[in-house]
């Protein structure tokens, strides 16, 4: 009886061995999802608590938001092309696409930092009202994740340079970063919909 139950599990484990790293990373992403869920809930509660301070209509503009969204969306597909190249073991192409993704991501972070700097300079910093505290916490947590992703991209580009093949370990790293990058894009969909657009109706 004991053997009967252990044998299929062992076979099961063996079959899925190559995916355990990626699955582990997926579980991490799910916990990250809960962090963002908590921050979205906080923002939803505090979104109208302006304390006499500036409102979203005065703070947000469509142009910058549209550009940020476009950069992040483009970086998603360029990373996808990088993954396709990785599966074909075209290393120079992978490095090129990672580089493009990095520049797009850097542009996104740059625009976000510039937006924050303008807001803080205008007296609309996180200390101004509950709405702004929640806004800065949520949006900068996402920005921090993107920044970590940028560091990760550079790391993998350096590790890929000068190699002629992509071992399984490297492929796992690229796959995990792929999940991370696309996951951040999904969080951004919720940010621009519920934080920005819904406040500008």
């Amino acid at each position, binding site marked *: 009886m004991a053997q009967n139950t252990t044998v299929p599990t062992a076979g099961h484990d063996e079959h899925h061995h190559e995916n355990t790293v990626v699955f582990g990373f997926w579980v991490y992403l799910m916990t990250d999802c809960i962090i963002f*869920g908590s921050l979205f809930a906080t923002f939803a*509660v505090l979104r109208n608590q302006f304390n006499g301070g500036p409102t979203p209509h005065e703070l947000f503009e469509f142009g910058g938001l549209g550009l940020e969204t476009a950069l992040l*969306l483009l970086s998603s*597909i360029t990373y996808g092309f990088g993954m396709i190249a990785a599966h074909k073991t075209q290393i120079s192409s992978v490095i090129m696409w990672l580089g493009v993704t990095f520049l797009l991501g850097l542009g996104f972070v740059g625009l976000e930092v510039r937006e924050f700097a303008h807001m803080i300079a205008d007296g609309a910093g996180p200390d101004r009202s509950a709405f702004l505290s929640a806004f800065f916490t949520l949006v900068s947590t996402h920005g921090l994740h993107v920044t970590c992703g940028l560091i990760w991209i550079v790391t993998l580009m350096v590790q890929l340079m000068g190699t002629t093949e992509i071992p399984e370990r490297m492929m796992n790293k690229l796959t995990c970063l792929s999940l991370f990058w696309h996951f951040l894009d999904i969080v951004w969909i919720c940010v621009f*919909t519920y934080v920005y*657009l*819904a406040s*500008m*109706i």
Partner: protein
Amino acid sequence: MSNPNTSSSGESHGSVSSYLIGFVLAVILTVLSFGVVMSHSLAPTGTLAVLSVLALVQVLVHLHYFLHMGGDSEKRWNNIAFVFTIAFVSILIVGTVFVMANTSMNMMSR
């Protein structure tokens, strides 16, 4: 990693065309979201409802075309973890908003 995957290459990690389809759909949905808000053509509640539907569809597009989520048995545990997380986050957000709205109503702070 590469050997087992080559047999089902197009399915498990996408192709150029599947990425492009996902990208075009995402761009259309994003432009629609911006358009609905910028045109002011609907009432506020209607706009919010349309925005929510567009965001949900776009999240599904990203999950399918970029994260390659699907019903295949190999990704069963990924899907179970995902469904659990969605349930958890839904309870978290809906519960928070409900409780806090109720509290502020009883405290007459609004």
